[in-house]
């Protein structure tokens, strides 16, 4: 059964209309195995991704609700952020995560604040899923001193060390070497924590990613490389920036398992990430997990620069696979939540967001004396 899934996954180009179709589960959320593709030609004997124990009956309703909450918080936060940017209410550029919510939510469901992640330029979703709060996040986007980074990092460097979030990153491919280093710390300190590097199909062509992956495999570090293949490196479609369809194919070259999952389905991500994270926690080393996904908005902002690089039809096609809509239908079907409850939750999130935006715009800007603060660590300061 897994065999068929493997092949189906291997042939799917991310940016085409058929992409990820077969991986989209239609039945019970709990039963569906992740579409899986274990590296065939590792130098060592190929590792098999850990199988779920017989006792594991799938995620609890609590877990399902938490993942839904994560996704919805991201969606509403990003929609509102994009609007603020296009209305000129926030300075700078925002790279928004709308469409990809299932990836951050499904992975982060397995992590605690003790686990480290590195993010990308499209980083709000990762921080929100890791436990980021609306108020200090909006305050950061507004450049206020009450922001997570005291207004010094902004959208592209938003971070929270207490939540184990080692920053969004303005450099494509900047995160994975850092995540590898954090995983090294975990191994050095002898704890069971893992680190997760999120990066895109664009970043998968950066040398830094290859070096980090090679070292993580070499040292068997508890590091999971999560490639969010959204089909585009900025404005260049995947087929124009790499000769492969599945980034996970590269895993065998690093000497780690490569797994593909449906990045539009939070259950698919949850299950695949769960196995990879379990493997890492138990000393089995890294996994390259590729999530086939899509961003609905432009590279920057919502409509962005209006460049002609993809069709509206393509976007609409992907929206049919929308992670949140489909998951909500499933939650209703499973009797986990009712439409009414979902609507009430949505309303509450929107209300919280408006309150956070008010908080952010009422917050003070950093004072001039903060300009030179935090460049260096100063003893006793």
């Amino acid at each position: 059964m897994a065999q068929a899934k493997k092949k189906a996954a291997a042939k799917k180009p991310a940016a085409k209309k058929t992409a990820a179709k077969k991986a989209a589960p239609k039945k019970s959320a709990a039963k569906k195995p992740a579409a899986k593709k274990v590296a065939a030609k590792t130098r060592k004997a190929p590792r098999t991704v850990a199988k779920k124990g017989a006792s594991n009956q799938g995620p609890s309703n609590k877990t399902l609700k938490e993942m839904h909450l994560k996704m919805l918080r991201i969606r509403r936060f990003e929609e509102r952020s994009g609007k603020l940017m296009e209305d000129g209410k926030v300075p700078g550029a925002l790279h928004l995560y709308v469409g990809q919510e299932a990836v951050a939510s499904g992975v982060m469901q397995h992590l605690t604040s003790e686990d480290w992640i590195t993010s990308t330029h499209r980083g709000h979703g990762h921080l929100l899923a890791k436990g980021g709060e609306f108020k200090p996040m909006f305050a950061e986007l507004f450049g206020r001193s009450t922001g997570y980074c005291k207004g010094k990092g902004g959208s592209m460097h938003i971070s929270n060390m207490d939540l184990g979030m080692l920053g969004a990153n303005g450099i494509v491919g900047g995160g994975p070497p850092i995540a590898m280093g954090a995983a090294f710390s975990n191994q050095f300190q002898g704890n069971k924590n893992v680190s997760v590097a999120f990066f895109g199909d664009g970043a998968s062509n950066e040398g830094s990613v290859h070096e980090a992956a090679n070292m993580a495999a070499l040292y068997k570090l508890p590091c999971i490389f999560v490639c969010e293949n959204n089909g585009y490196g900025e404005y260049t479609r995947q087929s124009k920036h790499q000769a492969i369809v599945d980034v996970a194919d590269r895993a065998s070259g690093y000497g780690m398992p490569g797994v593909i999952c449906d990045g539009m389905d939070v259950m698919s991500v949850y299950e695949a990430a769960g196995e990879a994270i379990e493997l890492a926690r138990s000393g089995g080393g890294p996994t390259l997990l590729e999530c086939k996904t899509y961003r609905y908005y432009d590279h920057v902002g919502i409509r962005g620069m209006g460049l002609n690089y993809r069709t509206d039809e393509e976007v609409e096609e992907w929206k049919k696979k929308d992670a949140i809509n489909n998951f909500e239908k499933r939650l209703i079907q499973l009797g986990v939540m009712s439409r009414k409850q979902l609507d009430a939750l949505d309303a509450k999130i929107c209300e919280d967001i408006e309150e956070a935006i008010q908080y952010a715009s009422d917050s003070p800007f950093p004072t001039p004396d903060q300009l030179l603060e935090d460049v260096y660590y100063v003893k006793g300061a």
Partner: protein
Amino acid sequence: MSEAKKPEPRVLPYVLAINEGIRTVLSEQDDAFLAGEDVAEAGSVYGYCGGLLDQFGPRRVIDTPISEKGIMGLGVGASATGCRPIIDLMFMDFIGECMDEVANQMAKMRYMFGGKATLPVTVLTMGGAGGSMAAQHSQSLEAWLAHLPGMKVVMPSDAYDAKGMIISACRDDNPVFVVLNKSSLAMSMEVPEESYEVPLGEAIVRKQGTDLTIVAFGRMVHEALDAAEQLKDVGLNVEVIDARSVQPFDTATVVTSIKKTHRALIVHEAVKFGGIGGEITAQIQEQAFDYLDAPVMRVAAPFSPVPFSPALESLYIPNAASIVAKVKETLEL
């Protein structure tokens, strides 16, 4: 009074002082580790990591692939999450391979995160020409690093400072580049066995003088001291300052000296254009313009890649003779 023999002062070459600095740090700090290309089993291509693997084991002395982005990323990620890495970047020239990790991640993370990340990482690297290693294994790129807010950069000129600055760098909670010099490896002097610090960001007057102040970096300090000796023969008494630290730079010590000598000459091995000498010249004219009796002058490498041929390389690297000539020019002699 006592007839008891004084113990012989212990003399160590620069290369072993580096070793002792690292050894001291690994002994004192349980969360420190050393990682780099060929540092463990081979003991580094310069020999300064010899014996460290035996003493501290493979958990703390780690051979890496030839992957500078990975190695430097290891330093960033591990230091931000509770370790105190010592990263060995074999040749300073290889920094091009990892400049993103150095410039965009390591130097800036603390600031970008609003002061909530601390990166106690030390990078040891080897600069300098003199061995016909040609254009990609001989450069002095300290100005690249000194241009990065968040980064500290030091250049120990001798064995004593090499050990003491490595210890200070590793105790510092900021990223610090310790730029060593490959032509100084055999240079020996008395080095205490015990642990000691040489402060970062403090220049030191190596020779007192009255007629002109030479500010020199790294190995150039020794060329400057040689020049100072030669200048005595023509009745000139120059002061020689070992800058020791490029970032932060100790402008105060230089300005104090210039208020006495009224003339300044900056000496570094890096190319003159865009070198740190230009910055120091600017700082001197900003802070001590009224005390100057002559333009601030520089002796540095010409604007070319480091040549391979010994015949050209010896012309390329500043030396005592070129310093003597420039001092005389400054004094209009």
